[in-house]
């Protein structure tokens, strides 16, 4: 098990503050945050490229904070890949094997096996400068796997790839993880987190703001920052007041006020209304829903789950409906429509 304990590093214009986390064998952990949040710094501390000012890195209980780079149990795939430009793809993959003094025969066997796994078998004689982005990414992964690290560290491995190449690489990463390899994957993309990882750690401004099982973190985001990352639709900035009935009222703007339940001391923050929790009706209907807003459909688009609509009801709301409802109600841009949702469906994040 890998454990990071209270790691802090100070740079001139940035600091990583007291980051702690645990990674169990077989985990697929994503480090999620915007660029400059300190995700890569964490990878570099794990790889030994940066020495923390304080805190420890433990591997199976042993302190490896000051261990030499070449002796650490981690393999790092840089964002820019850093393939050796003067070596062929074969030699790039064989590099770690030569370091470990494998004989020629086993090197050939291992390179063959890894190039098959990563799908670069036809590129072995090429030089890195002649590879496409997706090919180079696969070679970099094969090269790192050849060192047989306990933990694979990936820095934004999908960011430079187009959508078809991404799908292929996502499958490869899943396969590698399913074969038992622990992976720590740095990303700023929620889709990657949702698709790949069983655990996520959200980093904001050098601080770990939330970590845990991926579905738990996104079901219960700890703050608006996490909520925004989870691509929560309808994340609306608002000011807060208390109604006579004891409900909280979020004022998004003059035309849009939203009731919600709970307690808060904050005067302002964000409300999130899940797109799936909003009901559309042609007329105002009496129901238990505290929030009833009239709006106009501005846009509609298909999604894999059905249809989403953008509705202007004082503020802009995204509403998700099934294709069946969409057709039944003959929904179309320009149409007047009522939105309703329960006060309990609204999540509030105070500033």
């Amino acid at each position, binding site marked *: 098990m890998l454990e990071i304990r209270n790691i802090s590093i100070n740079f001139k214009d940035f600091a990583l503050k007291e980051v702690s986390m645990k990674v169990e064998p077989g985990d697929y952990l994503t480090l999620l945050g915007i660029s400059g949040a300190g995700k890569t710094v964490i990878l570099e501390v794990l*790889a030994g*490229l940066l020495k923390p000012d304080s805190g420890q890195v433990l591997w199976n209980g042993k302190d490896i904070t000051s261990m*030499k*780079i*070449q002796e*650490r149990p*981690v*393999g*790092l795939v*840089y964002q*820019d890949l*850093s393939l*050796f*430009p*003067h070596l062929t793809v074969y030699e790039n993959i064989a*590099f*770690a094997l030569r*370091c*470990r003094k494998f004989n020629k025969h086993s090197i050939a066997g291992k390179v063959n096996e890894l190039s098959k796994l990563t799908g670069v078998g036809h590129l072995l004689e090429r*030089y*890195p*400068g*002649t590879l496409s982005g997706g090919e180079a990414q696969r070679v970099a992964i094969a*090269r*790192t796997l*050849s*060192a047989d690290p306990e933990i694979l560290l990936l820095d934004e491995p999908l960011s430079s790839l187009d959508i078809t190449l991404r799908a292929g690489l996502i499958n490869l990463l899943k396969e590698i993880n399913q074969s038992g390899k622990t992976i720590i994957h740095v990303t700023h993309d929620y889709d990657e987190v949702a698709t790949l990882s069983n655990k996520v750690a959200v980093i904001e401004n050098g601080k770990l703001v939330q970590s845990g099982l991926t579905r738990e973190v996104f079901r219960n985001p700890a703050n608006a920052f996490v909520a925004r990352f989870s691509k929560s639709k309808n994340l609306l900035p608002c000011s807060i007041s208390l109604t006579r009935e004891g409900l909280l009222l979020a004022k998004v703007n003059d035309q849009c006020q939203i009731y919600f339940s709970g307690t808060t001391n904050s005067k302002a923050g964000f409300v999130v209304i899940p797109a799936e929790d909003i009901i559309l009706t042609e007329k105002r209907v009496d129901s238990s829903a505290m929030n009833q807003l009239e709006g106009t459909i501005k846009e509609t688009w298909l999604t894999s789950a059905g249809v989403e609509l953008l509705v202007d009801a004082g503020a802009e709301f995204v509403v998700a409906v099934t294709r069946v409802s969409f057709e039944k109600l003959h929904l179309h841009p320009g149409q007047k429509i009522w939105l309703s949702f329960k006060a309990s469906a609204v999540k509030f994040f105070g500033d």
Partner: protein
Amino acid sequence: MLQNRLLNVVFLFLSGLILLFIVAPLAGMFLKTSVSAYVDTATDPQVMSSIRLTLFSSLVGTIIFGIAAVPLAYLLARKNFPGKSIVNGIVDLPVIIPHSAAGIAILGVFGRNSLVGGVGESVGIQFVGGFAGIVVAMAFVSIPFLISAARDGFAAVPVKLENAALNLGASPWRVFFRISLPLAKRSILSGLVLMWARGLSEFGAVIIIAYHPMITPVLIWERFTSFGLKYATPVAAIFVVVCLVIFILMRLLSRDPLHARN
């Protein structure tokens, strides 16, 4: 547009003047010499053995001192240490000081009465008036060219590549020999060629430590002072041609067409 044209004309004119300034004296030297003078000089054993000595001693100096200079260049490119700018300054010193002064300074260290000179002589290496002295003098004045080329070469190798190699389990030695050195190879080779070329053209420092055996720059000077321009010019012309041919050949060889793309 008009201004651009004016700029082009002025710049082209000045560039042409400078090129003429370099080429004209050399061309004059070649054209002034008769064919028979070339033939006579080219078959003069003293001239030929002097050219061989010059090329060889500079080559030996380049190889011996280059082996230690490359690690120094690597340290200067990669490590930060107190006094680094002073070390960088020291490395450039031989370029700045007058070469006769360099010769005097070398004589102080390698002369017969000095420690190094004395030890050398006791094992049969003669610096003053000897091959070893020529090698040392040539290397002294030319080594900054190698160090700065190699330093720039190493500095251009991304540290990330070295870290990636370490991360793959390579020892620092392996990283140096398999990653840093091959990637800086072109710069180092070009530094070696420059060092060698600068070494074989040295006159001031060499003449102070070793008038004999006579390297070609000394021979040219000797023929000029003893017999006049007419006798010195063919030797100079032939030496320049030999140097140019070898220099161009080595430049071509140190090109790396295979990896040029990367």
